C-alpha cells in the first residue's frame, strides 16, 4: 500500500479522535468534579444524535449549526438529571450510583427505540462527499468540519474553566470540597452546573458525530464504554488527557482498521487500555494518586 493511504487514514483517525475526545471530556469533567461516573454518557450522545437527525430530516437544518441549540437542550437535561435524580445519591456508595445511572441509560435506549425504531438513521449534508486536497492528503469534509468543531468547543471549555469565576468555582469544588463549603460556594448548584456542562459537551459531540456515523439506539452503551476507556487512558481528572486519549484511540481505530479489518477496531482500543493500565496506571496525563 502506498504511504499516502496510511497518512490519509491517520489524519481521518485523528479528526474522529478529536470528536471522541470531546465526548470523553464531558465524562471527565463530570467525574472530576461531581465524583459520579455518568454511565448514561453515550446514551445522552445518541439522544443528541437523534435530535440532529430529526432536525435535519424535518427542516434540513445543518447539524453543525444545530450544535448550539442541541448542546443547550442536553445542558438542561443534565442540569435536571443531577439536581433531581443524582444529587440524592451523591453520598451513597458507588454501586448504588452505578445502578441509578445504568437505569437511566436503559430508559434512554428504550425510549429512543420506541420513538425512532431500530433502523440506522443518518444525515446527508450537501458536503457529505466533498473533500479537501492538501498535497497528497485528501481530507473528508465531514471529518474536517467535525474535528474543527470539536477543537473549538474544547477550547471554549478550557477557557471557561480558566478565566470565568464560575469555572474557577467549579475547579475549587473539585479541588477541596470542604474548602468550597467554608467559603460559601453553593456546591449543589455548581454540581448541577457541572453535570449540565458535561452533558452539553456530549450534546455538541452528538451533532458532530452524526456526520461521521449513522445512529441506532444500541450505539449508546458502545459510546459510554468508549468514553470510559478514553478517560482512563488519558488520565482521570485531566481535561487535556481526555482529548489526547480521544485522539490516540481514534488514530488506533483507524490504522488498526486499515491493517486488519474495521470490525476488529475495538480490539486495538482495548489493547491500548491494557497497555496504559500496565505501564502508566494513572493514565497518560493523570496525576499519580498518593
Amino acid at each position: 500500500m502506498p504511504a499516502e493511504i496510511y497518512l490519509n487514514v491517520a489524519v481521518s483517525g485523528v479528526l474522529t479522535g478529536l470528536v471522541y475526545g470531546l465526548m470523553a471530556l464531558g465524562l471527565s469533567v463530570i467525574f472530576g468534579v461531581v465524583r459520579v461516573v455518568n454511565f448514561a454518557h453515550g446514551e445522552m450522545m445518541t439522544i443528541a444524535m437523534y435530535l440532529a437527525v430529526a432536525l435535519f430530516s424535518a427542516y434540513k437544518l445543518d447539524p453543525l449549526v444545530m450544535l448550539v441549540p442541541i448542546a443547550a437542550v442536553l445542558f438542561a437535561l443534565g442540569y435536571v438529571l443531577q439536581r433531581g435524580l443524582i444529587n440524592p445519591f451523591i453520598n451513597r456508595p458507588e454501586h448504588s450510583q452505578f445502578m441509578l445511572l445504568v437505569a437511566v441509560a436503559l430508559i434512554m435506549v428504550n425510549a429512543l427505540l420506541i420513538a425512532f425504531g431500530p433502523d440506522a438513521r443518518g444525515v446527508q449534508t450537501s458536503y457529505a462527499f466533498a473533500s479537501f486536497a492538501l498535497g497528497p492528503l485528501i481530507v473528508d469534509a465531514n471529518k474536517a468540519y467535525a474535528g474543527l468543531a470539536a477543537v473549538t468547543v474544547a477550547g471554549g471549555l478550557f477557557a471557561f474553566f480558566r478565566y470565568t469565576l464560575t469555572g474557577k468555582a467549579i475547579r475549587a469544588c473539585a479541588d477541596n470540597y470542604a474548602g468550597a463549603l467554608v467559603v460559601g460556594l453553593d456546591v449543589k448548584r455548581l454540581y448541577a452546573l457541572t453535570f449540565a456542562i458535561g452533558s452539553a459537551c456530549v450534546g455538541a459531540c452528538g451533532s458532530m458525530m452524526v456526520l461521521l456515523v449513522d445512529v441506532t439506539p444500541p450505539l449508546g452503551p458502545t459510546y459510554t464504554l468508549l468514553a470510559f476507556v478514553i478517560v482512563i487512558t488519558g488520565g482521570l481528572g485531566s481535561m487535556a488527557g481526555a482529548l489526547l486519549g480521544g485522539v490516540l484511540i481514534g488514530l488506533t481505530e483507524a490504522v488498526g482498521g486499515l491493517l486488519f479489518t474495521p470490525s476488529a477496531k475495538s480490539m486495538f482500543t482495548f489493547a491500548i487500555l491494557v497497555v496504559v493500565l500496565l505501564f502508566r496506571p494513572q493514565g497518560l496525563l493523570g496525576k499519580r494518586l498518593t
Partner: protein
Amino acid sequence: MILRVEGLDLFYGDAQALGGVSIDAEEGELIAIVGANGAGKSSLIRTIAGIERPRAGHIFYRNSDITGLPSYRICNLGIGQVAEGRQIFPSLTVEENREMGALLPRARAKMAETMREVFATFPRLKERRGQLAGTMSGGEQQMLAIGRCLRGRPELIMLDEPSLGLAPTLVQDLFRTVRTLNERGLTVLLVEQNVVASLKLAKRAYVLENGAIVMRGTGAELIADDRVRQAYLGVETSGRKSPHG
C-alpha cells in the same frame, strides 16, 4: 447581640459531639472558645456555619433564626469562617483562591475595594498572587485562608485553630493580626488549643469539655482560675508535645 447559640445538640451517628451548648457574642467582641482536642470546638464552628445540622437547639444571627440554613446562605449573611486545616484550594492560584471568597453576592459589589483592603493587611498575598496555593508555606496558607475569608466581607469571623502547625513567631504575628481585625470592628470567634494566648487576647471566653460548656468568664478571670490553670496551662508551659494528636 450579633450571635446567640442556644442549647445546641449535635450528633455524628450515635456519638454526641455537642450537648446543650449556649454561647453569645456582642457586636465587635473577641470571644475565645478553648478546650482540649475533641472537646467539640470545631463541631460548634461547623454547626454555626451550617455545615453540620444540629439535632436540637437554635442559632440566631442578628436576632433571626439561621438554624438549618445551607452554608452558602449563612456565609452570605456575613458569617465568615477560617476552617481548621485552612482548607485552601491547593491547585488553584493564590489569586483564584481569594476570588472564591469574593463570590458571595454580598461581596461582589465591593470586590475591588475589598481586594485593596486585604492586600493592605497581607502584602505577601499580593506578591504571591500567581503562585499555586498548595506550594506556599503553612504560615502563608493561613494568611491566604484569612484573606480569602475577608474577601467575603464578613461581620463575624470564626477562626478554627488558626495557630495549628505554625512556628511560634508566626503564631505571634497571627494573634496580632486577629487583634487588628477585631479593633477594626470585626466580631471574632476564636477557637484555640493555645489557651494562654487566646485567653489573653479575648474579652470573654468559654471553656468547652466533652461537648459542653463547663466555664465562662472574661479572659483574665479564666486565666486566674485554678481549674483552668490545672487542666490547660500546665500542658501549655511544658510545651505542646503532640500538636496533631
